[in-house]
C-alpha cells in the first residue's frame, strides 16, 4: 500500500513562487507521470515529495500520514536522478547496497537484495565494475537497482531517460513499464517528453508554470483536453489550432465557420457558444484527410514523408486574412501530395475540439470510448 496525497502544495524561492498550489491524489500501484515544458516546476514538485526541498505551504500525505517535516530517508521513497548520481568510487554492488549498509542490514541480507535487484535488471555481470566502466543504459539500470533494493513505497524518477539515445530510450520505456508491473509499485515519473508520458502513464499530470492544467489517463487527455495548453502539449504532431467564429448552435454541436468559407459542426455542448463569438477550433492532424469535397482548402507548403505516414503542411486559404494559418495533416505515406499544389482537406468532426476565449475546452457531447 502506498498512496500519495498533495494538498495546496506551494514552494517559493524568496519571492518567486515556483509551485502555486497543487492538489493531487496518486493511488496505490499507479504509474503517474508529471509532464510539462522545461522550467514548469516538475522537478521541484518531485523533490518536494522526496523531501529534498522544503515545502513552503500545504500538506503532503504518504499513506495518510502527513510527512512535511519527515526527512527524505524516512519517507520510504527512492529516487532515480536524471544524472543517475551514482557514487563514482563505489562498485555497482556497493552503490546498490549503500542504503542497506547505512540502515545496518546484515551482509547476507545486503547480498540477497542486491542479487535480487541485479537479477531483475540483468546487472549480474557488472556488479564489480565502477560506474565509469558502464554504458549509459547500464548506469541507468544501476540507478534503478539502487532504488529497488530499498523496497520503497514509491519510486520517483526525474527524467531518467533524457540522457539516453532514442533507441535505448524506447527500450528502457518498455523495461520501466514491465518493472512497474512486476514490482507492483507506485511510481511517479517526471518527463518533458509527451511520448514517454503517453506510453507509460496510468495517470498523466500536466503542469504549466507551477499549476496543474489537467489530470487524467493518457487517452482522456488526448481526446478530452481541458484547455488549449493541454491540447497543444499532448499529441504529436501538435493539434492544429485555428481562430474561428461560431455560426450557430445545433443540437448536434456547434457550427463554426472555417477560413475559406467552409463550415464544420463540432460535437460539443453548445450552451456556452453564442453565435458570433470568437473561439479556437482544434483539429488533430490525423482528422484531416485529402478529399475533393473537403471543407478546408490551401496550398501545400511543405511535405514530410515518414514512410508509413506523410505530414502535409497546408497554408489554409482565407479571404479575410492575407496570410492564412498553416495546418498539418497526417495522411497516408503513399498520398501523392506535392509542394505547391492546392488540395482540399476533409475534417473528421469527431476529432475536433472547441476552446472558448479563455482557452477552456467546451465539453464534448459524448465521451470517447477509450477515455472512460
Amino acid at each position: 500500500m502506498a498512496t500519495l496525497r498533495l494538498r495546496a502544495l506551494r514552494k517559493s524561492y524568496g519571492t518567486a513562487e515556483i509551485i502555486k498550489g497543487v492538489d493531487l491524489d496518486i493511488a496505490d500501484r499507479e504509474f503517474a507521470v508529471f509532464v510539462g515544458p522545461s522550467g514548469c516546476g516538475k522537478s521541484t514538485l518531485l523533490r518536494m515529495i522526496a523531501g529534498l526541498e522544503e515545502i513552503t505551504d500545504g500538506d503532503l500525505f504518504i499513506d495518510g500520514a502527513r510527512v512535511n517535516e519527515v526527512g527524505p530517508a524516512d519517507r520510504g521513497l527512492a529516487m532515480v536522478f536524471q544524472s543517475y548520481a551514482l557514487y563514482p568510487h563505489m562498485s555497482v554492488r556497493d552503490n546498490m547496497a549503500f542504503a542497506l549498509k547505512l540502515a545496518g542490514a546484515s551482509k547476507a541480507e545486503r547480498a540477497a537484495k542486491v542479487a535480487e535487484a541485479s537479477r531483475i535488471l540483468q546487472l549480474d555481470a557488472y556488479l564489480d565494475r565502477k560506474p565509469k566502466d558502464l554504458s549509459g543504459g547500464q548506469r541507468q539500470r544501476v540507478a534503478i537497482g539502487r532504488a529497488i533494493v530499498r523496497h520503497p513505497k514509491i519510486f520517483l524518477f526525474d527524467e531518467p531517460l533524457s540522457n539516453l539515445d532514442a533507441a535505448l530510450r524506447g527500450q528502457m520505456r518498455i523495461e520501466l513499464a514491465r518493472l512497474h508491473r512486476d514490482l507492483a509499485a507506485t511510481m511517479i515519473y517526471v518527463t518533458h517528453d509527451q511520448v514517454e508520458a503517453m506510453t507509460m502513464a496510468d495517470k498523466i499530470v500536466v503542469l504549466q508554470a507551477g499549476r496543474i492544467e489537467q489530470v487524467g489517463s493518457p487517452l482522456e487527455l488526448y481526446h478530452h483536453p481541458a484547455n488549449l495548453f493541454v491540447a497543444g502539449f499532448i499529441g504529436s504532431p501538435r493539434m492544429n489550432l485555428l481562430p474561428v467564429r461560431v455560426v450557430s448552435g445545433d443540437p448536434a454541436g456547434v457550427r463554426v465557420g472555417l477560413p475559406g468559407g467552409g463550415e464544420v459542426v463540432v460535437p460539443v455542448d453548445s450552451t456556452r457558444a453564442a453565435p458570433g463569438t470568437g473561439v479556437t477550433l482544434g483539429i488533430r492532424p490525423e482528422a484531416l484527410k485529402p478529399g475533393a469535397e473537403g471543407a478546408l482548402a490551401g496550398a501545400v507548403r511543405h511535405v514530410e514523408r515518414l514512410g508509413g505516414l506523410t505530414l502535409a503542411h497546408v497554408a489554409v486559404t482565407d479571404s479575410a486574412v492575407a496570410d492564412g494559418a498553416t495546418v498539418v495533416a497526417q495522411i497516408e505515406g503513399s498520398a501523392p501530395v506535392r509542394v505547391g499544389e492546392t488540395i482540399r482537406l476533409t475534417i473528421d468532426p469527431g476529432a475536433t475540439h472547441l476552446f472558448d476565449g479563455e482557452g477552456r475546452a467546451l465539453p464534448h457531447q459524448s465521451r470517447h470510448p477509450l477515455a472512460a
Partner: protein
Amino acid sequence: MSTPSTAPAKGRRFNGLPLIGPSVTVLLIWMIVPLVMTVWFSLQRYNLLDPTVTGFAGIDNYEFLVTDPDFWASLANTLILVGSVLAITVVGGTLLAVLFDQPFPGRDVARLFAIAPFFVMPTVAALIWKNLMMHPIYGVFGAAARALGLPAVDWFADHPLLSVILIVSWEWLPFALLILLTAVQSLDREQLEAARMDGAGAVAQFVYIVLPHLSRAISVVVMIETIFLLTVFAEIYVTTAGGPGNATTNLAFLIYARALLQYDVGGASAGGVVAIVLANIVAFFLVRTIARRLEV
C-alpha cells in the same frame, strides 16, 4: 571520401627527437651540472676557513655527517615538521573547504580572508608571528594569556618546533583550502541528494561521498606541500635560527649552517646529497601512490 587515413597517421609518427632534443639537453644540463658538482664537493676536503686543506676526502664527509648527532636531530625535525604541517593543513583544509562550501552570509569575504595568508611571503609571515603574535611581551597570544590571568608563553624558547610548525601551517593551510574548496565545489550535488535519500546523515555523507571525492585533490595537496615543506628555511632563519640548540634545525637549515656559518662546503654538500636522496625517496612513494590514485 575514402582517402586512406594512414597518410596523416604516418605523418604524425615522425621522429620528434630533433625537436625535443634541445629542451631535453638544457634541462639535463640544468639538473645534472649542480647534482654532479654537489656530489663532487661532498667527496672533497673543502673548508673556506682553511683553504690549504684540499684533496679527495672519500667518504669522510659522510662519515662525519652521520656520526654528528645534529644530523639525526635535523632529519627527525624535518620529518616531524613535514608530517605535522601536512596533517594540520590537510585535515584543517578539508574541514574548512566543506565549511566554506555551505551557504552563509559573508561567505565570499570569509573565503578571501581565509586564502589571504598564502600571499604573504615566508619571511614576512615569520616576522609577523615572531613579533606580533608569539612574542611573550608584545605578542597577541601573550596579551590574551595575561588578560585571562595566565602566564604568557615564550613560544620560541619553550615550544620552538611547535611554533615553527604553527607558522608554516598558517602559511600552507590556505593553499590546501583553495585546492580542496574547488574540489568540493565540483562534487555533483545530486550525489549528495542521492545519499540523503539513501539515509546518509551529515557524517555519513562526508565519509562516504565527500572524502572519496576529495581523495585525488588531497593527494595533490600532499605531494605539492611535501616538496616545499622539505625545504622550509626562511621561517626558521627568521624566528629561531635553528635553535635553541638544534631544536628547530631541519635538513635545509643544517646544510645552510654547515656551508655558510661553518664554511664547510664539503660537509654541506654531503648533507645536500642526503637531502636529494631523501626527497627522491619521498617523491618515489608519492608519485607511485598518486599515479595509482589519478587512474581512478
